[in-house]
């Protein structure tokens, strides 16, 4: 074999090796590039709905652990914990077709103390077009609300005792309240979940006659919007805490013995009020 042929063969072999290494490197690099948002097939960006959950007390933003708020019963109060579930967000179109957000099985957990929970990004095939309204379930419906669904915190810590109906708290709002002029503020656990009907209205778990699903649907007022293909739409869902304590049933903290989980009347009344606690607005950014 001539020397020139040997050199050519060597060059060829080197080129094959280089190509193999480059292909391997490319395979290593490309998956990491996909994470940056460039789709593999070069298709357009997904249509995305970003929901921010905002907790207010009338016109004031909720600041935890601050005795800044007053309800319609003239109770001063502060909130130390606010945790709740929103589920089954539905976007309703005027042609009768609905789009249901399926992220996380359609369940979103919100904790006022954990900023990351205040956002819910829905980008799984949100259709473009005009929607007439938005609705959701406050809490979890009967089908979704079963015990040991969530094994990990923080959702796990919303568990609702099996003896009281099981599943999870829809909302845990732990607050302290006092009347004007009182020195001490006393705790109130505003907790909603499955209710119980007790024989003779005597609270005894051995005499539970039935359980009551207290979850409810919320139809957000003035929630029509349009979204175009590839657009990112920002939506702010506001919960006004004071609405829970006013409306059809004025809610005086002094009226209940600091807790509600075994008081179906209190939970029912609160849920009637809660239907009006939510509003929505659309923004051009994440604020």
């Amino acid at each position, binding site marked *: 074999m001539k020397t020139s042929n040997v050199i050519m063969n060597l060059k060829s072999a080197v080129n094959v090796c*280089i190509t193999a290494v480059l292909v391997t490197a490319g395979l290593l690099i490309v998956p990491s590039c996909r994470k940056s948002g460039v789709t593999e097939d070069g298709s357009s960006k997904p249509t995305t709905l970003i929901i921010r959950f905002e907790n207010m007390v009338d016109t004031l933003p909720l600041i935890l652990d601050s005795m800044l708020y007053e309800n319609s019963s003239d109770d001063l109060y502060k909130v130390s914990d606010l945790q709740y579930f929103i589920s089954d967000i539905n976007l309703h179109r005027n042609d009768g077709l609905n789009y249901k957000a399926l992220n996380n099985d359609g369940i979103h957990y919100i904790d006022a103390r954990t900023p990351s929970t205040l956002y819910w990004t829905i980008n799984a095939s949100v259709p473009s077009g005009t929607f007439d309204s938005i609705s959701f379930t406050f809490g979890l419906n009967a089908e979704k609300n079963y*015990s*040991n669904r969530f*094994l*990990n915190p923080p959702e796990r*810590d919303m568990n*609702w005792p099996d003896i009281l109906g099981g599943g999870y708290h829809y909302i845990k709002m732990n607050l302290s309240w006092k009347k004007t002029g009182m020195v*001490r503020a006393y*705790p109130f656990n505003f907790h909603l979940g499955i209710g119980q009907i007790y024989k003779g209205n005597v609270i005894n778990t051995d005499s539970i006659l039935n359980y009551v699903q207290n979850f409810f649907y919320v139809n957000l007022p003035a929630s029509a919007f349009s979204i175009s293909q590839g657009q990112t739409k920002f939506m702010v869902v506001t919960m006004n805490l004071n609405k829970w304590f006013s409306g059809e049933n004025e809610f005086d903290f002094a009226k209940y013995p600091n807790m509600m989980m075994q008081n179906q009347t209190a939970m029912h009344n609160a849920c009637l009020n809660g239907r009006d606690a939510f509003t929505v607005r659309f923004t051009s950014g994440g604020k």
Partner: protein
Amino acid sequence: MRFHVVLLVLAILLVFTGCNKDSQDATTSKPTPYVISIPKFFPTELNIPPDNPMTVEGVELGRYLFYDGRISGRTEPDSLMSCSTCHVQAHSFVCGIDNPRFPGGHPYGLTGILTPHFMLPMINLVWVNNGYLWNGSLAPGNPLQAKRRLEDICWMAIVAPHEMYGDTNRSTTLIQSINGYPELFEKAFGSRTVTVKNMGRAIAQFVRTLISADSRFDRFLEGKVQLSEKERKGYVLFMTETGGDCFHCHGGEGNPLFTTNLFYNNGMDSIFGDPNDRYGFTGNAMDVGAYVAPTLRNVAFTAPYMHDGRFKTLDEVINFYSSGVVWSSSINPLMHHVSTHGVQLTPSQKSDLKDFILTLTDSSFVTKTAFARPSGFPDEK
């Protein structure tokens, strides 16, 4: 051709920058993965940092170090101190109220200085995600980078005046000199050099294996046994707001760890002065007087109770929650019975509640060989 060479060099760099030191070590030592079996209904998310994966060799080394008094850097019999000096398996890894060395169950270090708090049991720590210690300060939010993880407990214990009061160089030098340890470090971490970092990693791995999931209540949840009538009544009290309302902080069937691992001012005091409460870490006024809710698993073995060991018996604890709760401006709202100083249980209810809590006793945890002192240390084999 030159272009190809440049690309080749770049490609090689790209490939090799993905290989960190740990993975190189792993190649040489090839430790065996240690798989934690997650009990039914337990959380599936484990607190195992990516840079300290569980391995059989790491756990084995960690067990030796946990029990070896020479980790203190000393060799005189009177000066030996290890984790196990205070963390006693028979008491779910607290020292125990009947400990002959630590009267009343309050441990102290080699120089006689008492620990700031009484002890927390070492049970199911692999599921702690909110910070370790009574105030949760051993957490990612700690401004001191070296005090954020379970791995950091090792060096902290070696130097703390109320524990070993040594220095890490002395400890690592001594462990390095002991026959058998360099080989164990090599098997676990790929290097024969003993470092305090790898000591911490090994001990943390061992501690993460300390899992309790074999109580009568666990078997009840699995449908294998029934609770007695008194235990059942106690269980209802535990799980209801109108009863003892224990579950909001201490879990239950929906949280079999029997703790949320969160922090509460549970109404024990109205005047506060402990610089190491939760407030001492967070600066949040609502955290004054707050401490982590300990797990109730094996609580029968972990007296005395509370951060300051003020209650010697379970009966005293139940009495406190029944009628001893006091108001303060930072009392946790979950203590909603404070206006009546507690949940006001009858003597019969207290007895039922205690019976239920005792179903959380896991005797296998306090006798399991894998958690016990090794039959011999590496230089004794």
